[in-house]
């Protein structure tokens, strides 16, 4: 009798551990191992162990790419937050039905695939594209601007692709915001400005941090956005990693680059949990945004 009782339970536990072990834990460990192997054009990665790949990371060429993509990602994240925060705030005040419809509308463009959408943005930004047409038509400029293949184009593309990922955690933290707290603040004489900065922003800060994390790191990897909109100039870390794996075939160096990204992620997550602890200690918040 007992084995039958346990069968369902054991099965799903086993499936869970098997899948996560094989397709999440093992691959991450393998990347770590690959990063300390030696490159080989035929076998991709071979013995002996060495730290050459990590030494190469400090080459000024790669360091510059790293700093450049850090800068582009930060800027894109900031703009996403500036647009996404009021968007989520306004949505949270709509009726549930209207909110679901608008959120649904935000998801619909995803079905055309982000690469194809990025390609459409490329069309918009060309010398003969809609952006230049409008600017020329209104008379702001006399001859077409070079929009494509600029930093602006890359940031525009990153914001476009990643915007919904900023909005979703923000919406969920606005959902948790207790309306009566705002009423209490109003009752105690806080005006709109104070209510915003002293109640709304602190209480939605878990959503802000989560949204920024979810946008910032992936932004550094968006190689196709840089390829299509940035031309050859503005290379993101993602382009570098992709080239190492699929073109140059230096897997150990590509892995070392990824490990640096993972380390950055770990640092940010550590910051995230510390910040959450701090907020909880300060404000007694119950946060499940990312747990």
């Amino acid at each position: 009798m007992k084995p039958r009782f346990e069968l369902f339970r054991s099965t799903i536990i086993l499936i869970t551990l098997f899948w996560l072990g094989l397709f999440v834990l093992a691959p991450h460990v393998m990347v770590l191992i690959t990063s300390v192997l030696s490159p080989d054009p035929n076998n991709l990665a071979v013995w002996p162990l060495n730290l050459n790949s990590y030494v190469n990371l400090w080459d000024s060429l790669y360091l510059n790419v790293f700093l450049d993509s850090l800068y582009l990602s930060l800027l894109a994240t900031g703009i996403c937050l500036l647009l996404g925060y009021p968007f989520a705030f306004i949505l949270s005040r709509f009726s549930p039905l209207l909110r679901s419809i608008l959120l649904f509308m935000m998801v619909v463009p995803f079905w055309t695939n982000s690469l194809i959408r990025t390609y459409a943005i490329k069309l918009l930004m060309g010398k003969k594209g809609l952006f230049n047409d409008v600017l020329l038509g209104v008379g702001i400029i006399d001859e077409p601007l070079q929009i494509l293949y600029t930093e602006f184009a890359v940031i525009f593309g990153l914001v476009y692709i990643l915007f919904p990922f900023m909005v979703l955690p923000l919406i969920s933290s606005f959902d948790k915001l207790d309306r009566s707290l705002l009423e209490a603040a109003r009752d105690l004489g806080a005006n709109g400005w104070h209510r915003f900065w002293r109640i709304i922003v602190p209480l939605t800060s878990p959503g802000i941090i989560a949204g920024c994390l979810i946008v910032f790191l992936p932004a550094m990897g968006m190689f196709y956005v840089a390829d299509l909109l940035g031309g050859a100039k503005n290379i993101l870390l993602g382009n570098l990693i992709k080239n190492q794996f699929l073109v140059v075939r230096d897997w150990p160096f590509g892995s070392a680059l990824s490990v640096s990204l993972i380390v950055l992620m770990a640092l940010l997550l550590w910051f995230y949990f510390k910040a959450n602890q701090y907020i909880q200690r300060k404000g007694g918040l119950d946060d499940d945004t990312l747990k």
Partner: protein
Amino acid sequence: MIPSNKPVLSLGSGLRWLFIAGVMAFLYLPIVVLVVNSFNESKYGHKWQGFSFKWYEKLWHNDALLEAFFNSLTVATLSATCATILGTLMALAVYRYRFRFRQSASALIFVVLMSPDIVLAITFLIVFMALGIQLGFWSLLIAHITFCLPFVVITVYSQLKGFDGNLLEAAQDLGAKESQVFRLVILPLLRPAIAASWLLSFTLSLDDVIISSFVTGPGFEILPIRVFSMVKVGVSPEVNVLATLLMLISLVVVIIVPLLLRRKT
């Protein structure tokens, strides 16, 4: 006239709507370009040169592109379904059972959620190489299922946490075995979360570029990879048609299918 704050309010709500509309325009601008150009006589999407179904006809004969399109849909549907099933079971295991490595399991799910796509992509590439799995349909499916998993687990888990814990005990108390508790109580109550998870996974899978470009091989091409290879030499206008169709088909799947299902039950 009675003094009223209504005009102020409507100004505020007018501004709000303007902002929402602006953001929506930003999100839909590229979509509009794609849809309009799918009917554009011109080969280059810069100028409108008249309405035409030309590209729809051409697509009909473009076997390679059509195949990539169907491959995309197939992978999205299959991976969404598998990820939903697998993720629901995982959420259940983490929620309901205390087992060795439970903490590690939830940490790993969290790692997948937070890892940038580019990192996930190379981890998949390396493990498929090490396991000797040929890059193609299966590698793509496994990768898509895995990166969709955390979204399913989080959606289902948060609904499970909202349950009255006594419900499951009540079922047990009334003589339900573990599998019956799952089938007769948990599953029906999880329906909204399961539907949402499926939709989210389907969407993420269709949208993905980065992971797919690392884990597909020449034997199995999906739409974004096909389009990416065209970018350098010029993307053919049939892609606009495909983008339009993809959106329409997804809308039909997402809106009509649930309506039909609801009528049945």
